[in-house]
């Protein structure tokens, strides 16, 4: 009797759990669904009824609103793609190289170097932005992609991750036998170590790419020329009065800024979730 009562209770509780999870899932998805559907509806349709799950026929009309205004999704897309791809390549390659110096070699300053990496791990770009901007202004690199790409070479968090991954997986025997075969140190890194690190590099590449793609603060202060604007700066333009009544166009613009991220996420979500989980496991 008591057992039956308890199982009845637990079934009830399980149903409750599912209800909460489904509500949260709706909460996560609904804003994006509204955004996607409204991107295809006209502004007057949206004003009359803002929530609809039936796509409209105004996609092209909404798209034409962008003509001659500051929001230019294609320019933003290309600029963001250039910066994100280059910065990600820099982060991945040089972080692996830096991790390799920490794992494979015994050098005197290694401990101090690792401590330095741990110290700057947490410092965000925002708090040094004033000096960074003034410095770039003086050397004439405002409106250039260089200050958005080169700093990616020194990415402490990625170095830390790569080191943790490399410690157990890199066998020094392989490196030694390559040395005996007469391979140079740099060649050993490029041809033996890099391929071993592929899984870790892929995970870090996703996170580095997304973080660069989404960055707003530094690009916003450095890129003044419209032709150089990245996607998030384009998004920021939508707040302007020009778009006040163009509801459909604003939704479409938002869709265009996140479409590449949605594609990346739903193709790679398994790896992304696994990567996030790794971040929490200490050591």
């Amino acid at each position, binding site marked *: 009797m008591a057992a039956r009562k308890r199982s009845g209770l637990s079934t009830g*509780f*399980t149903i409750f759990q599912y209800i909460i999870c489904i509500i*949260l*899932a709706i*909460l*996560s998805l609904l*804003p*994006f669904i509204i*955004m996607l559907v409204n991107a295809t509806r006209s502004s007057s349709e949206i004003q009359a009824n*803002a929530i609809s799950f039936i796509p409209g026929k105004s996609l092209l009309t909404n798209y034409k609103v962008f003509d001659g205004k500051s929001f230019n999704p294609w320019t933003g897309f290309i600029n963001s793609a250039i910066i994100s791809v280059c910065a990600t390549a820099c982060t991945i390659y*040089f972080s692996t*190289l*830096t991790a390799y*110096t920490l794992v*494979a*070699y*015994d*050098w005197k*300053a290694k401990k101090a*170097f690792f401590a*330095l*990496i*741990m*110290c700057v791990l947490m*410092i*965000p770009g*925002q*708090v*040094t*932005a*004033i*000096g960074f*901007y*003034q*410095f770039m202004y003086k050397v004439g690199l405002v409106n250039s992609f260089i*200050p958005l790409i*080169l*700093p990616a*070479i*020194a990415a402490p968090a990625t*170095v830390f991750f790569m080191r943790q991954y490399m410690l157990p997986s890199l066998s020094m025997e392989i490196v030694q036998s390559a040395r005996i075969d007469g391979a140079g140190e740099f060649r050993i890194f490029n041809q033996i170590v890099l391929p071993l690190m592929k899984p870790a590099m892929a995970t870090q590449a996703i996170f580095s790419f997304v973080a660069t793609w*989404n960055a*707003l*603060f530094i690009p*916003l202060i450095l890129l003044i020329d419209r032709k150089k604007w990245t996607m*998030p700066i384009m*998004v*920021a333009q*939508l*707040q302007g009065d020009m778009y006040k009544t163009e509801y459909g166009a604003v*939704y479409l613009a*938002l869709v265009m800024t996140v479409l590449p991220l949605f594609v*990346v996420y739903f193709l790679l979500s398994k790896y*992304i*979730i696994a990567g*996030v*989980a790794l971040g*929490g*496991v200490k*050591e």
Partner: protein
Amino acid sequence: MNKSQRHLKGLSYAKYGYLFAIPFIVIFLIFQLYPTLYTAFIGFTDMKGVNPVHVLDHPFDNFKDIVHNQTFLKSLRNTVVIWIMNFIPQITLALILTAWFTSRTSKLKGQGFFKVVFYMPNIITAATIAILFSTLFGFPTGPVNQLLKSWGIRATAFDFMTSKSASKLIVAFIQFWTWYGNTMILLVSGVLGISPDIYEAADIDGANGVQTFFRITLPNLKTVLLYTLITSMIGGLNMFDIPLLFNRGGPDGATTTASVFIYQVAFTGTNLYYRAAAASMVLFVIVLILSAILFYLMRDKDAIAMEKMKKAERKKHKMKERRGF
């Protein structure tokens, strides 16, 4: 390979260690260390707009001014308030979901799907999310207002954008909404890292689910929880995209966070770089202190555990020796 041999081999290759560390060090010096020092230096000057720059006669004036600057203090308060309003529900919900998702008595189905969906907002551009929400909460015909009216919760549309508390609440909600999935995944992986033996022992002792969660899961999650707390604090201190783009830091500065303050002071209007630099340094010191705490807590744990193990080992040894002889 014995120790001295390894040492010798290591030594002969040591120069490569330095060589391969050069790119990181050079870029770090140019793009991180120098801008940091330069920001601190600007804090001691009267730099604004494009005028010539002088070091102040009383170099610490800017710093004295900034810690008494009402707008800056208000922005710090806003940052803390919004962070707390986001963090408490975030960690609570994440813990509840973690307990459900790792429960050993009832396996929830579709966990993979739920994780993917809960985490999704975290990967979407924050700027886009901010504008999306300001559109969703639009007045008078935004989707939220239409919902409130059609469900009969409100008779007339509510202007969220001109209400200070509503704006704060929505910014906090967006932060909560984008981060609880991330926190939950971290906590779940923390729980999966706890040794199953402990749970088995608890089962044998007849502990129920609630007892197990509070007596075993929570204490063992301490490090992960601390990590989440401090990284969230540092992230929260730098909250920028969402408050700036949701309502331009308004209304009446209600959602102006410290980062938004620095941005507005330095890069809009009169370009008071010296004031923004002083504010940056205050923020920088806070972040440094928080990182130091995190670093200390995480490191100490390991060291203490190692020390304990060593001690226990030594004790065992001694006991054995005593027994042996």
